[in-house]
């Protein structure tokens, strides 16, 4: 993971072509959701050790936002999907 990422659009590329945003799990709340929901979204993270989903953007390639599903201890990557597709799954 930390060396190569398989972009679903561009193929396997070195890590330095990507920009990493962070946890992909938080979903932006509705505008009128509670203060707690908004604080949770912007500030709080489960931050588990193990399997996580993370937002990476292929800035030096297709510029698509991707969801990289991986283990943050072993650095094994399970799946890389386009974020728009991953979002459909979540909805």
């Amino acid at each position, binding site marked *: 993971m930390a*060396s190569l990422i398989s972009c679903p659009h561009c193929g396997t590329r070195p890590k330095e072509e990507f920009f990493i945003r962070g946890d992909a799990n938080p979903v932006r709340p509705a*505008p009128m959701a509670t203060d707690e929901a908004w604080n949770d979204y912007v500030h709080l993270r489960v931050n588990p050790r193990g399997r996580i989903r993370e937002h990476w*953007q292929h*800035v030096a390639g297709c510029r698509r936002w991707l969801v990289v599903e991986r283990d943050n201890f072993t650095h094994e990557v399970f799946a890389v999907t386009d974020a728009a597709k991953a979002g*459909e799954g979540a909805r």
Partner: protein
Amino acid sequence: MSAFRLASGGLVDRSHTLRFTFDGASLTGHAGDTLASALLANDRLLLGRSFKYHRPRGIMTAGPSEPNGLVTVGSGARRDPNTKATVAELYDGLEARSQNRWPSLAYDIGAVNNLMSRFLSAGFYYKTFMWPAAFWEKVYEPLIRRAAGLGRTDLPRDPDAYEKSWAHCDLLVVGAGPAGLAAALVAARSGLRVILAEQDFVLGGALLSETAPVGGEPPYVFARRVVEELQNSPNVTLMPRTTVFGWYDDNVFGALERVQKDVAALDAAKPVERLWRIVAKHAILATGAEERPLVFGGNDRPGIMTASAVSTYANRFGVAAGKSVAIFTNGSSGYRTAQDLAARGVEIAVLIDSRAASGDVAPDGVRLVRGGSIVDTKGRQRVRAVVADRGGFEELIGCDAVAMSGGWSPVIHLACQRGGKPVWSEALQAFMAPEAGPALVTAGAAAGHYRLSECFDDGARKASAIVEAIGRQAVGIERPVIGEETDPSFTALWHVPGAKSKAFVDFQNDVHTGDLGLAVREGFGHVEHAKRYTTGGMATDQGKLGNINAIGILAGMRGVSPAEVGTTTFRPFYTPVSFGALAGTSVDGHAMPIRRSPLHGWAARNGAVFIDAGLWYRSSWFPKAGEKTWRESVDREVRTVRENAGLCDVSTLGKIEVFGPDAAEFLSRLYCNPVLKLPVGKARYGLMLREDGMVYDDGTVSRLGEDHFFVTTTTALAGGVLSHMEFAAQVLWPDLRVRFLSVSDQWAQMSIAGPKARAILQAVVEDDISNAAFPFLAARAVRLKGNLKARLFRISFSGELAYELAVPAGYGEAVADALMRAGAPHGICAYGVETLNVLRLEKGHVTHAELDGRVTPDDAGLGRMMGTSKPDFIGKRLSARFGLTAADRAQLVGLKVLEPEKDIRAGAHLLKDGAKPSTLNDQGWVSSACFSPTLGGHIALAFLKSGRERYGEKIVVWDQLRGVETFAEVCDPVFVDRENTKLMA
């Protein structure tokens, strides 16, 4: 004289003599020598001084694990400190120097530490030097610093070049010994893309120093034959002089190729070293095994080496380590060395076997002592004798070299770099590589198969399995018949009891058994604590030789097995790698890309001084003849713009085209201010927040069509804003029908500002741009004379009547030239970002100096822009947090200097008149400041607590860093044309 070149034998080219120097003395060696073998051949045993006690030290190994034989190679700016003589390839003209000695290698003042050693036990420095408090840094520490370190550098600029490259393969084989060659051969014949990397300059590994015939030939001949076949296989890349130093995620390996590190004349077209990132589907570590030193009293004197090194010097380099060699072994390997020496006529003083009984047979005529040990050695700068002990009976035995064999450890370093812990093998009395998955396996001695035949078989077997895993048919190889093989068995002996003097475990850092005992006594018995407390394993060899004995000794002291003690963590780099190789070509001016505006040439022709602005070179000011300071130029440019007109390159701004039926809705959610109702043909200032409610970026939003917008960003955040928009479109609201792309590089954009801007521009623009036809904030496509399509925006950063004209990048310079010609009669000038900064500051406009990521729209005086009635925009909800709306937040104000002879600089802080400086009393800070030619005095923008309520207050501008304090009056941040009459004109 003791060590010498044998009359015959070895793989060196005796017909090719190379000259080199050591500490100024002229010496010779042969092609094929390492620096170490050549020094030995010249009977140079003493090579350097150890780290702590400055004890005399010589060569101990014949490979990359060398702890002692470190020298500085080269001279001037090409000096390489801490070079391992055992790896450095000899070349004609090589200059080597010993290290860590003063005034000379033979007479070293630092050696006094050796006499003081009882006071310098492990960790002694933690327990003293505390009183008086100031003495540590003034007296003790400088002494310690001077004593520490080995090689010396004055950090001269490196004249050599480095480069980096990627390589891809099905199978990477690390190590070209018997197992590696067999593996590579199977894979090569089976059609895999193979890379075979070997740190040595000759491929063959142990085959180069073995004597048992392979296929009826000397082993090195067999190795050459295999290498030749591999060389002729188009699917194989051989990489000699290449050390694989790291195993990274996704089976990517880091490797260092010494392209021309060891050559007499450098080819300037080539790098000295090349860094490889090797992407391997599979890898086989055929890295061999390391022979352990024995830990006995005085085991560090020059002339004492591992037995395998003694054999290697004899067999591969034709060098005898001594005239009379004592051998001390705990297993069969010592007997092999005895045979090697005997075969070459070197006298063996004694062969001492720590085992009481074994089936091993000493060569005829060699005195064999079973169940014995060495408890001490004699000699000053080289070993002269050993004190042997047999059942309590001591005997002094003269010798001039000692070969020691403490058993074997597989080299598993790379396999342990990704979190896997080594596994103790009771049978092999060694740590083995952890299970690392199918992508990385060990083979041969690295997997604990020490015999030559096993190495061949294991290498071939592991490669076959990989070939099949890839889905191909494995083509086998026939293993050659191998003569009498070296038996690898030994009985672990972690340290020799009854040592009469210091028995070293970590040679370079001078860690001896007493230090480990002290560590355990003081509660530092955990292997990591022991390492950190004694510094064992922290020298340049990273404990390759010593750690295993330290673990065994700790285990013994703690009464547990080595398995329970475990190892310290294996980490990159296997052997040290130069900064230069890791940095490659991305240094100096190439450290980061350079970006130039499409108007760069125009600016240069007009005499611009350029400054760095992120990756960009931006025109900063345009000095005229006779102007001596930048201020003179800037003051003139400001006055010219305010009175006539000026032209400024603003092409570096980020530019993004936004299309789609939902483009307006999309932008409405991105900007905090209303965008939905922006009429076609109009521009608007736009402010983007982060989701936490702080200002992210500002720019303009222009509506060029119902479904077509054009937005600009600041120069610094052009990339960031694009990513932010892409995130919003792809992740947050993928249902919005919007597409956009960056056109930052497609347009040259220039600002034409000043009362005469319209008149000048009209000379170039076909369309009517009168105030009625093209009012303030108009934004639309226009046609230039000559029928060039362009875009014109009537926006103003300067506060003047101003336009921004965008033309296709390739036409930028021509249009700018045309405008300058048209403007000449009106007194136009070119102006740069310095003047732009003064103009915007006079007008109270903000930049990233104000919008520093900690500022809300309200802080910046832009609170009214917030579209609070919009249902949603990024940053809306968190903007309402208590802390972001608190009344005492720092707010943007203007400052006018009250003492005309004094100036204000950005970064000054603010204090109430009469208040004592303190963090509590701190009232704010100055974000931007300049001399205003328009107002004739120094002005500034600042953030002041509750600032908008404090206009008129006299405040202290506190710049203690420069030693300047001055009074200023707080005022509205808009200094000029508060009524906007100029920009509406």
